[in-house]
């Protein structure tokens, strides 16, 4: 019995992919658990804390450093060395790299996820724009033209309780988000403040409503009704939009790479990997499932079912993916992605960052105050890490 956790919409389509695997491996029974995406991080930590981790799980690659710091994951290099399916060279290099911590491989990329723009091409055209924006300045002009708060129309939906949007903008800056080897926050850098100002201005100019995703309710149908012209989100929404919008509206939306401060922008090197827990008693079976899910033809089917983008170049060369116009922007964006800071505390810092950003959106803080508060909180959160780093640095010396 192999327990496998999935988060979000992937779980529902896994039920259609698994029977084939189980037919090929009659001795392996898979127990699939679907958990809500918003609870993913907490569920994983709780499972670790409670000693009840599954055999394997889907794991957001920004959380890999955290799970590695907890020594919860099984190193996978030796499995990959003997595998004929998983070929590291075939993967997008920046995505593969997020799975390597201190030179050791802990996960196999399952799908890639970078945030970019979904947009209503018909609305843009009506407003006189033939192509999606490539720079922030163009983007701002379009947002202004497409917003009419009195009519409940906004340029874009940026849920104030999701950090991915601001983080995507911040990663486009030259300044790193943390400094001194991840010991301190770097939110008061000029680059981050520029991203924060652009983000906050979007609300202050009423080009985005200051609401959370709880209040946003059903963003898909509102996008379909033209409440929002842009939607900054990830690839799984290709599947959601296809499933949830009527056929008549399918020609009216498209995707585009993220605009950058000055030219086409960089995105987050996000995505989910497949990992095996150290405590698992079924590692061989888990690896067999990882290999199955890593086959290009399975990844193509996976894309067809849910819209998740495969991390292997060869998977992009066949099936529906090759000719899908809505996937093309992602393919482009994937060549320009940057990872989030590889510290275990990142998820918590990102949450703290977003809370202060939301306060700035609400007008409680200025940009400078918000950035200073983010640094203060990041430094507080990183206190233990600093102690551990110094401790570890001192320990070998003491031994000598």
């Amino acid at each position, binding site marked *: 019995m192999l327990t496998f956790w999935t988060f979000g919409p992937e779980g529902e389509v896994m039920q259609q992919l698994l029977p084939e695997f189980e037919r090929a491996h009659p001795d392996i029974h898979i127990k699939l658990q679907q958990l809500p995406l918003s609870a993913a991080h907490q569920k994983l*930590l709780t499972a670790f804390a409670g000693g009840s981790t599954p055999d394997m799980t889907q794991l957001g690659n920004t959380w890999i450093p955290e799970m590695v710091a907890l020594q*919860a994951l099984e190193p996978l290099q030796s499995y990959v060395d003997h595998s004929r399916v998983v070929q590291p060279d075939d993967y997008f290099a920046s995505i593969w790299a997020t799975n390597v911590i201190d030179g050791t491989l802990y996960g196999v990329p399952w799908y890639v996820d970078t945030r970019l723009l979904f947009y209503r091409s018909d609305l843009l055209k009506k407003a006189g724009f033939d192509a999606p924006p490539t720079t922030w300045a163009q983007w701002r002009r379009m947002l202004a033209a497409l917003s009419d708060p009195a009519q409940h129309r906004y340029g874009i939906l940026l849920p104030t309780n999701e950090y991915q949007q601001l983080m995507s903008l911040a990663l486009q800056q030259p300044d790193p988000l943390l400094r001194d080897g991840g010991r301190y926050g770097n939110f008061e850098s000029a680059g981050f403040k520029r991203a924060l100002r652009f983000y906050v201005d979007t609300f202050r100019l009423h080009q985005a409503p200051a609401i*959370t995703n*709880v209040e946003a309710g059903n963003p898909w149908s509102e996008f379909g009704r033209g409440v929002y012209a842009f939607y900054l989100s990830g690839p799984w929404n290709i599947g959601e939009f296809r499933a949830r919008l009527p056929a008549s509206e399918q020609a009216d939306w498209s995707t585009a790479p993220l605009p950058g401060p000055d030219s086409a922008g960089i995105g987050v090197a996000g995505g989910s990997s497949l990992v095996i827990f150290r405590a698992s008693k079924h590692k061989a079976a888990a690896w067999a499932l990882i290999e199955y899910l890593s086959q290009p033809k399975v990844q193509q089917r996976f894309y067809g079912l849910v819209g998740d983008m495969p991390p292997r170049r060869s998977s992009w060369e066949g099936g529906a993916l090759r000719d899908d116009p809505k996937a093309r922007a992602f393919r482009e964006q994937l060549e320009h992605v940057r990872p989030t800071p590889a510290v*275990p505390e990142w998820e918590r810092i990102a949450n703290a960052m977003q809370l202060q950003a939301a306060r700035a959106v609400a007008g409680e803080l200025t940009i400078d105050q918000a950035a200073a508060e983010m640094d203060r909180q990041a430094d507080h959160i990183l206190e233990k890490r600093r102690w551990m780093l110094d401790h570890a640095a001192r320990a070998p010396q003491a031994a000598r």
Partner: protein
Amino acid sequence: MNAPRAAWLFLAPALLVLGIFFLLPVIGALGLSLTDYDLYALADIHNLRFVALHNYLALLQRPLFWSALGHTVYFVAVGVPLSMLTSLGAALLLNSPLARCKPFFRTALFAPVVTTVVAVAVIWRYLFNTKYGIANFVLGQLGIHPIDWLGDPHWAMPTIILFAVWKNFGYNMIIFLAGLQAIPPELYEAARIDGASAWRQLRHITVPMLGPTLLMVGILTVSGYFQLFAEPYVMTEGGPLQSTTSVLYLMYDEGFKWWNLGSASAVAFLLFLIMFAVTAVMLKLARCGEPREQEPA
């Protein structure tokens, strides 16, 4: 079998359960709150540091702790009186000799109490949806501008208070009803002969006679309302802008979301101390007000 031995055997199961699953962990929490027990320590106990009172001092310097305490006190200070007044009002109505269909009304008013917080909080989330909720639709019919009930930091807590009053008033209503029925009817009879108005009867007979019940209900309700958690967890996730983050929500986040068990234990103990102090003050005030009144244990 001699009597003391029998007594201890009868007590043993309950005392063991309370000792192992309550007393022991409470002592453990005190110890935990003096350490920086976190995920790193969970992975490797060598990463554990004894930090004495640092967790407490750090909390007292953290704006989030004070705002969580503020939200909790707000919830208690507005929610408890409102809830008790509603309970008392409903009990008075039900106790009136003029009321009809009493069993039906009693059941209907009590029904929200037995429902599951999570389930009814989900209902309220939709009823108070800014766009499609019935609450704003009704307001709209009255010509009132829609309110962003759960999305506006100023409105989220009042909405949760409203919800809590709706959910809980039935319980105290029953207790008050029992208290009212225990008041001898002759007292009202005499007052009526003296020509006392309904309001004067309420002030001079009902409220004093209900005194001990009011105090007991007050203390229980206050300590219940201090433990605000499930409502914001389901309705607002502590937001917007952490305006519904209660002390307990902070403890949950700190402890079971980020696994800083040391600091979360400190939050729990601070909450305990605050609740203890508030209860003590209430008892003291009640004793001052009515020196004759003796609370039975």
